[in-house]
């Protein structure tokens, strides 16, 4: 085996994996702050990308203004989702909330389709398509930028969850009733977690939109994002980063070996296998919290 080739596969896999992490952080944020799996992150990511485009192309703003402004809009949307949809379900069985987020995802997809149509639009971030050379290894610049964004968000949220607001969010995830009893505003906390996830969705939407174009397919990232989030442990941001890298490398290297054997398409199989095996063997993932049972 050619070591240069193998490391190229691994490095590019890891970078792509960090882009999955970028998406998965949105899932983890909501779970970490409310113990609800957020299946709407795909829809949110797509809406995030479309809002950036709407501001940049349709209203003619420069991207450096359109992206932060889209983040503000999406922050508000996140709060709105809690206020309109989730608040009524607080304290109800998780299954119902899960279904609600899935419905939300479908709703967001339908809305973007109705407003912006189905044709793919390009983000045009202005990042060069010329690959970088690391010795003999090719590296995509946009992937490098996206991986940097993922790591920056990782650091930011690690710090955030040590602040008083962050601790309150973790408390909410632990026990709604106990949170209410000491005056924590559970509603506002859940709203904030969705707002932050929506901001992360803008980042993921911009990077993935640049890579594969802005269209309905963006919402399909949910499958890989969910796999990364589950593998990392649904409530661990560190887990999302590590699991993203692992999945990216396994997928890229594995597909190289498996594709010739099965005639292509093994990427999806690898991702599915990772998801299923994680849930079967290690349901709380690599770094997820266990439910504590004292004996």
């Amino acid at each position, binding site marked *: 085996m050619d070591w240069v080739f193998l490391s190229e596969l691994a490095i590019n896999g890891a970078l792509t994996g960090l882009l999955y992490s970028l998406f998965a952080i949105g899932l983890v944020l909501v779970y970490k702050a409310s113990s609800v799996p957020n299946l709407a992150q795909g829809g949110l990511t797509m809406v995030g990308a479309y809002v950036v485009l709407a501001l940049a192309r349709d209203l003619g703003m420069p991207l450096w203004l359109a992206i932060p402004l889209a983040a503000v809009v999406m922050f508000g949307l996140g709060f709105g989702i809690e206020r309109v949809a989730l608040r009524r379900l*607080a*304290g109800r069985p998780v299954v119902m909330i899960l279904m609600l987020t899935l419905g939300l995802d479908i709703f967001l997809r339908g809305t973007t389709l109705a407003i912006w149509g189905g044709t793919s639009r390009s983000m045009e971030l202005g990042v060069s398509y010329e690959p970088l050379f690391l010795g003999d290894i090719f590296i995509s610049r946009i992937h490098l930028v996206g991986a940097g964004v993922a790591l920056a968000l990782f650091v930011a949220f690690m710090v955030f969850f040590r602040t*008083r607001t962050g*601790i*309150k969010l*973790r*408390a909410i*995830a*632990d*026990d*709604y*009733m*106990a*949170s*209410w*009893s*000491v*005056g*924590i*505003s559970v509603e506002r906390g859940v709203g904030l977690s969705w707002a932050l996830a929506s901001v992360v969705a803008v980042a993921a939407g911009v990077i993935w939109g640049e890579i594969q174009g802005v269209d309905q397919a963006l919402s399909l990232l949910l499958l890989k994002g969910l796999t990364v989030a589950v593998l990392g442990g649904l409530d661990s941001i560190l887990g999302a980063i590590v699991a993203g890298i692992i999945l990216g490398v396994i997928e890229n290297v594995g597909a190289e070996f498996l594709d010739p054997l099965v005639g292509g398409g093994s990427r999806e199989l690898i991702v599915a296998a990772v998801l299923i095996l994680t849930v079967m063997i290690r349901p709380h993932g690599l770094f997820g*919290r266990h439910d*504590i049972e*004292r004996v």
Partner: protein
Amino acid sequence: MQEKAQGQSILSMNSIEVLYDNVMLAIKGVSVQVPKGGMVALLGSNGAGKSTTLKAISGLLKAERGHISRGEIKFDGTDITEMLAQKRVEMGICHVIEGRRVFEHLTPDENLTAAAPMGMSRSELSVEKDKIYDYFPRLAERRNSQAGYLSGGEQQMLAIGRALVTQPSLLMLDEPSLGLAPFLVAEIFGILQKINREEGLSVLLVEQNALAALEIVSEGYLIENGRVVMHGTAEALKSNSDIQEFYLGGGEGANFHNVKHYSRRKRWLS
């Protein structure tokens, strides 16, 4: 007489009725007064309506689809019957809910931080934490371990400490002795008494362990079947033969042939 008593009360609850799911009447006209700086116990058996009474006061009923269908609750002279739970905490009512319910995946220190009011400055919070660690030295030792792995007694202490961070003037505790060894119950009750004395904190205690509760409170209410069936000073309750027999496990000794046992109990429940 009644007027005067209300003037000194921090909490006055008048003929409260609570409905769950709009159908189940859990308490049927309960009136409870807590004097400022006093310690009051609600006694009674399982399912009598003690917890519901506390939830009506703290506003946590809403989370369980219950609501107050009649009566009013005044806290420090303000009508709080319809107020949001969060607002009541800000006003100074804190409810230590049944079963300890600490934030298991947080450290004890983070548990205290989580309960801090948003307006409390960093330095105020650390003063407050030090005070709580002084009351509960066991917590100080384990402040950075995971709360879920603390012992039952330590978790109860943490639950009380967490409530104290909200700076309550009325602390309500639901069965703090549940599942704890007697020496721990004595330790925790002793600390509660100390806080009550030193800070003038009013305490409303729900207990099945009447023996332990009547040692530290000044008065008590006996609730059965959603109604207050008896009210008096701790001394009076302790010497009441019915209470002795049914709740303190003693009195004239166990006489199974005493038919009056049933008729006496029936008298309250009717």
